[in-house]
């Protein structure tokens, strides 16, 4: 009888091109996603060595990090951004790669469009020069971020030399309480295991609470696996996964679909498989979460208060002290008393249609607090079109939100959407690092529901507080 294996081990084993003891495995890559920021130097490398893209048909490019999200008919103001966007266009043309360019109907954040198009499928290996590639693991794909040298490697060879990662199970058992969202689940996980808690491992999210999540919710959870240091995050494919995929443009059709289902069902972790590490979290204990510091593990429930650094030991204490100085917060301040200047709803963590619906339902009939800037940036042009078809844009704009085009936007502030020094934001994105959303900006990570309620209240709030 074959040894029991986990989901990630099964997907890994299916992709080993060459294995030699003591060396990393040479792994075949099924889908390579490309964006403008981490690819120009890789294409340059190919040109210098006279190499081609081995499988343009397994490669897809989009423009997301730099693109303006305001009026797309205007030229990009920043000449350096414009040059990078132009470089991607030229490179895709020269190497024969499909490109969803700015302004096109399929353009969007790279981790939103892969699933949306049905390109991301169970059992695949997916890479991208972007750490949040872990998002695609929600489908039971092994998906991880790579650097530019590795992007060049995949372009040239469709393979990557990788060491087999460890396996880790994070089991969230039970029922999530009212108002507790997938974002709160992953913030709680990171708060529990820390920013280094997953280093060297692939996390498989398991348990009844995970099974109950939609694909959007699973993507939100897998997306932030990297914030716990994990190589990737995965969820075993099930009927929820299949229902999401069926009928998408690149999903298998007809007899191929039936064959795919059989294969995908066989990917689940075997009953007797043993993980290298296991963490169990009780879903019933979870509350909406808000980060208070400058890494995503510095997080507390919304009913809590900013902690005292003295409660931490060693380097964690020093990190907490530095974070509170940067965030201009005093220990003991109640989270609900913290006021914000800006609310950002967007990013590959929380800018899918389900996220926008959740935020819109909170905002409906309310107004954004006077003086507060609030923006919604859909994750893709398709999400935007869908939201407009449902009238969500009207709900947002009537409340005083700005309604934008698709892109990364204020998640990392490479385009003009940035925080000013000292500005404080409630953000549905994934990183509260110093300066992430603009130099000197202060970021608190929250769910779309909390972001929406906070926009109305002016301080951190949950939706029920508004009624």
């Amino acid at each position, binding site marked *: 009888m074959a040894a029991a294996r986990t989901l990630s081990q099964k997907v890994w084993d299916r992709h080993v*091109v*060459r294995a030699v003891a*003591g060396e*990393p495995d*040479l792994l*075949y890559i*099924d*889908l390579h996603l490309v964006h403008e*920021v*981490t690819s*120009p*130097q890789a294409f*340059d490398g190919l040109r210098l060595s006279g190499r081609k893209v081995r499988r343009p*048909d*397994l490669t897809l490019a989009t423009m997301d*990090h730099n693109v303006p999200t305001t009026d797309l008919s205007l030229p990009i103001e*920043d000449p*350096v*951004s414009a*040059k*990078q966007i132009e470089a991607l266009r030229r490179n895709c043309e020269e190497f024969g790669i499909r490109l969803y360019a700015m302004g096109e109907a399929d353009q969007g954040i790279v981790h939103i469009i892969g699933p949306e198009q049905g*390109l991301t499928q169970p059992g695949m290996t997916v890479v991208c*020069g*972007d*750490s949040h590639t872990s998002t695609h693991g929600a489908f039971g794909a092994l998906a991880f*971020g*790579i*650097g*530019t*040298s*590795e992007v*060049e*490697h995949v372009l*040239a*060879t469709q*393979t990557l*030399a990788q*060491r087999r990662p460890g396996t880790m199970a994070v089991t969230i058992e039970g029922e999530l309480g009212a108002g507790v969202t997938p974002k709160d689940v992953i913030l709680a996980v990171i708060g529990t295991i820390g*920013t*280094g808690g997953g*280093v*060297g491992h692939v996390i498989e999210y398991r348990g009844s609470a995970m099974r109950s999540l939609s694909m959007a919710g699973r993507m939100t959870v897998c997306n932030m696996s*990297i*914030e716990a*240091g994990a*190589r990737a995050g995965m969820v075993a494919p099930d009927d929820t996964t299949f229902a999401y995929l069926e009928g998408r443009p*690149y999903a298998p059709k007809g007899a191929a679909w039936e064959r795919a289902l059989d294969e995908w069902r066989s990917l689940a972790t075997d009953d007797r498989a043993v993980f290298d590490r296991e963490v169990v979290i009780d879903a019933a204990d979870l509350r909406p979460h808000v980060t208070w510091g400058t890494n995503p593990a510095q997080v507390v429930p919304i009913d809590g208060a900013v902690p005292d650094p003295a409660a931490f030991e060693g*380097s*964690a204490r*020093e*990190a907490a002290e530095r974070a509170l100085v940067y965030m201009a917060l005093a220990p003991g301040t109640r989270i609900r008393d913290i006021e914000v200047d800006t609310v950002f709803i967007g990013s590959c963590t929380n800018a899918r249609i389900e996220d926008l619906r959740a935020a819109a339902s909170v905002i409906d009939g309310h107004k954004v607090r006077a003086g507060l800037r609030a923006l919604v940036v859909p994750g893709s042009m398709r999400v935007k079109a869908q939201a407009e078809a449902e009238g969500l844009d009207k709900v947002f704009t009537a409340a005083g939100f700005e309604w934008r085009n698709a892109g990364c936007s204020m998640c*990392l*502030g*490479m385009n003009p959407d940035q925080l000013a020094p000292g500005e404080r934001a409630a953000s549905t994105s994934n*990183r509260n*690092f*110093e*300066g*992430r959303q603009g*130099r000197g900006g202060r970021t608190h990570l929250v769910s779309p529901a909390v972001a929406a309620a906070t926009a109305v209240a002016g301080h951190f709030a949950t939706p029920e507080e508004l009624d």
Partner: protein
Amino acid sequence: MDAVRVVQGTAVPLGRSDVDTDQIIPSEWLKRVERTGFGRGLFADWRVDRDFVLNQPEYAGARILLAGANFGTGSSREHAVWALQDYGFEAVVSPRFADIFRNNATKTGLLPVEVDAAVSDALLAAVRDDPSIELTIDVERRLIAAPAAGIEAEFALDDFTRDRFLHGLDDIGVALRYEAEIAAFEHPVVV
């Protein structure tokens, strides 16, 4: 990448845990389409502070960065490695590196030196005490030493990665040697 056998020189005691790649090279620097010129952006937001350790003249010309745990978390940007190299660093010492940062470093010849927390603390203390102290990192023997402070310790580096540093191998060239295996693996899936 070029071969790296020994890194020798003075060090900068950065310390600090959880230094993410957004700090190493802020996003406004990522718009460049070249691989060079990122040194000026290294720790750009922190360098605004005159007291920041990189601004202190006694650490000028250092080749080794002494960092705290969880160095290089966050974004996969290889620009972080390019910035460290362009500034003049040849090695980073830390009790724990983020996976993607470590991978990127080994692809471009920046040596990630993973040491025990106690060794890391001892090195930081020694260099803070005397910035002129010389460190030697021997890739072949996997040893880091600061003789003047009486410190010598092993660091973790697997054989395969060590050999790549010693010989300066071109990964893509190596992978392309297995063309037959890659071709055999490929099946005509069209996405």
